[in-house]
């Protein structure tokens, strides 16, 4: 008897508490920048695609929902010919972002991806690729890599000596 009265009293007190529920979608919840939502592909500062199609995101994905094919342009820069994420399978674990060596793939605080047709949950590169750098500005993988592509010749990277002259005998 007493416990019932106590329960009623406690419930009554909740009327004066601050409400936790927000009136979504009129009121949007606060999502921190590192919230793991929709996946995007970003570009570097020069506006080129960051993704080098290394397949690490695909291999890290525990639900195998990323599929891509690498190709190269005339300068030897590697990029994905297609890049597909099946969001109907994605569990937003963020492993792909952790695996990405070029900061290309990023998870952003957007979760509003509901669809009536499951087929529409399949995102191709044109849906994923944005024009900006996302969360990690200023990183350009090719500046740090040893390969020579359009933006940088051999030995022009940030941590590189000039290419060796093989005929040089100096120590």
């Amino acid at each position, binding site marked *: 008897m007493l416990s019932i009265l106590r329960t009623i009293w406690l419930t009554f007190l909740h009327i004066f508490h601050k409400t936790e529920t927000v009136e979504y979608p009129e009121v949007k919840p606060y999502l921190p920048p590192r919230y793991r939502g929709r996946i995007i592909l970003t570009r570097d500062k020069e506006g080129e695609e960051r993704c080098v199609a290394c397949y690490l995101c695909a291999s890290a994905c525990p639900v195998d929902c990323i599929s891509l094919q690498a190709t190269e342009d005339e300068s030897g820069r590697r990029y994905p010919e297609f890049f597909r994420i099946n969001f109907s399978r994605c569990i937003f674990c963020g492993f792909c972002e952790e695996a990405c060596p070029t900061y290309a793939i990023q998870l952003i605080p957007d979760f509003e991806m509901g669809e009536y047709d499951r087929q529409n949950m399949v995102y191709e590169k044109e849906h994923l690729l944005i024009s900006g750098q996302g969360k990690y500005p200023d990183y350009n*993988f090719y500046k740090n890599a040893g390969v020579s592509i359009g933006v940088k010749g051999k030995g022009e990277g940030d941590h590189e000596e000039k290419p060796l002259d093989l005929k040089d005998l100096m120590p």
Partner: protein
Amino acid sequence: MEVSMIKILIDGKQYEVKPEKNLLETCLALGLNIPHFCYHPALGSVGACRLCAVKKFRDADDNKGRLVMSCLEPVKEGLIVSIEDDEAKEFRTAIIEGLMTNHPHDCPVCDEGGECHLQDMTVMTGHNYRRFDFKKRTYTNQYLGPFINHEMNRCIQCYRCVRFYRDYAGGKDLNVFASHNHVYFGRHEDGVLESEFSGNLIEVCPTGVFTDKTLKKHFTRKWDLSNTPSICVHCTVGCNILVSERYDSLRRIMNRYNGAVNGYFICDRGRFGYEFVNDDRRIRNAKIRPQKEENQVEADNEILTSRLKTSLAKSQKIIGIGSPRASLESNFALSVLVGNENFYHGISKKEQLLTHTVLDFLQKSGVQTPSLKQIEKADAVLILGEDLTNTAPMIALAVRQASRNIPNQEALKKGIPIWDDGPSRELAQDTKSPVFIVTPFKDGLDDLSEGTFRASYDDIAYLGFVITASLDNKFPVSITTDYEHQKFADKVASVLINAKNPLIISGITNGDEAIVYAALNIARALFESNPKCMLSMVLPECNSMGLAFIPGKSLDDLVALSAVEEINTLVILENDLYRRATADMVDFLLERSKQIIVLDHLTNRTSVHADLLLPAATFAESEGTLVNNEGRAQRYYKAIVNSNHVRESWRWIDEFIKINDQDKILSWNRFDDIVSSMVNEWPVFSKLKTYMPDSDFRMLNEKIPRQTMRHSGRTAIHANIAVNEAKIPNDSDSPFTFSMEGQPERPPSSLVSFYWSPGWNSVQSMYNDLDEPNGSLKGGDPGIRLIAPDGTVDIPYFKMIPTAKKLQKDEWMIVPVYQIFGSEELSSAGHTLTQRIRVPFVYLNRKDADSLGAVEGDRIRLVISKTNIVLIVRIENSLEQGIAGVSINLPGMPFIELPGIGNIYKL
């Protein structure tokens, strides 16, 4: 031979091991991981990279020990070492750290990533943080041709590439340049790598300096490739390969270790010849010709069936042409459809006669035909009229290893083990086991040769008979020859007779009967005195030997038949007849055939004549058994799921049989059914039944996965078509499944579908599959020998002595010149390999060219048996005067029967 085992102590644990090995290979065989770079089982140890350091203790009382390189440490009784010693571990980590100071930040864009020996070793030693703050050294790259990509920044200076390319494979144009920390591995200038084995640099290089350029075009990581064990179809040797698929296309070919056939290496034709499978010229849909003179049009199933019903009605007489490049099973199916009496081999009468002669000799004479491994053990070699480097490159590579046997024995006497590569080569200098090369023009193996003999085919064959006569004084034919020939023959004979494991190599690709007979005679004569002598005969195609086991008539017989009676229905199985006989003959045959049904992979000159053209699956899309030149039957498996109308040839023919005769119930539902049906019909293949696990084979109730455990994209690959995942394609023909699910345990040796073991992602992980480095696969090397030399039948000598043909004025002796790239039909269709195919050419001696008034690069017209061909002149002074070598079977060349006599006119 039983070797007495010795006891050694590793990290306090006692092991019984084989003596005369080095510590590194011993540990790898025991499954103990020691990081290493420069050691490669096929190349031996040089102690260059310093990574395989372990601690060695003097005796049980020694607790300080000293660091030694395990690759240079012979195992001796009572050896005490420690791999896990802290100082040794620290040393190895420091070595890797040093190597990594200049290694670029390339892994994401490096094709080696994921199967990189350097990655594996870095993880294995535990180095993970870069402390070196200075800049990285860079190099410029070179263009090395259409097959190999060069990225020199990634080099860690292990020297494996030059040791393989120069020391092992005899290449000349890859070397190491500059000094100290500037050393550079490449060519003296940009250019195509000349060696026929350059593709192996991809697997030999522990990092991504040399990578596969054909894979780069459709790059896929190792873990995403779906792999299937297969057999190379581009020559008669039958190397074991791994075929890799992704997104329904063939992505690359890798070597698959087989201790008896190809060890660690395959040739470039085998590695890069796969692109025809993905080619646009592939026949993927069935086509019919509605009326004579009309064009072929694509047909749906209904039209196709009704058309087949009329063509294959029981009242019709059906003739079948098999093929030496089709599997045993497909040939068998065709012979069941048409009956043995109507089954033709689809090769010329001469080729058929020669293959039969060879097979008959190998079965009855008792002379054994060696595997590649046995060829490597030969201590005296005679090559008679066969251009090995171009017709069977892997045999040439094996002969190259055989040439090291005698110097290696010398080194052993001086206490230098064979694996100790530096000193043993230093001691050998230029001494080699005797190799005699008797060919009409220069040979890729000339640099090994103790004696070369350049002559016309008639003289080569004649020399063979002279050698036989010097080997056996009972040789029934009297031979006279000039002093020079006699001297050379006597020298060869005395070397062969004194050798322990002499080897005769010849082949039928030269098309000269007398040379074949001469080679068989030499082997027979040698066998009398040395039962260990070996004979290796090169045949033209991947299943030439298999076809020889099957009853059937030749293409010439069929042409003769067609002159007598019209043919109702002609079924041509995977065979371009225009490569087998003159265009006149084939035109005649096809004109005399009312209905022509062609089953093939690629559009070719024969397929355009087809009234019904049916897409046949290639080696990558079907199961089949091939028999190589040593009579080893080996099986390949389906790597790609068939699409469109593409089906296995035997499945098409099974359908034909059902249409042809409804009473015949074969129930060939699965590949195994046709195998057992074939074995019942032709008991010569009875060993195939027990040869390897059939499609019911399971490991703990599961099929063997084609895909690695980290295969990615399963739920996204087809999501653009339908978001619901499709069912895994059913594979009732093999013990494999198109999935990653299955037993992670190692399957039987013939069913190994990819190399991986914990900590080893690179191809080096195959250590885990071998009983010891350079040894056999665990569970025995796959493949079953169908030829068991009998030795009880006394085969008489062949007595057909050739007489030198008299040439009229303006007449030339024309001999065939095979090309590794181009002379084989299927590989020539790949667009990368095409870049290496030369324009059809003629080799002429300079004096001959002068007499024609031609210089290098001029065009000439060759007229031979009414065929006209325009060819480019190439000066080749090793040819005797009066002989012209003509490139054979290159794309666009008409068939010419060689050797023959022809006329040459300058244009």
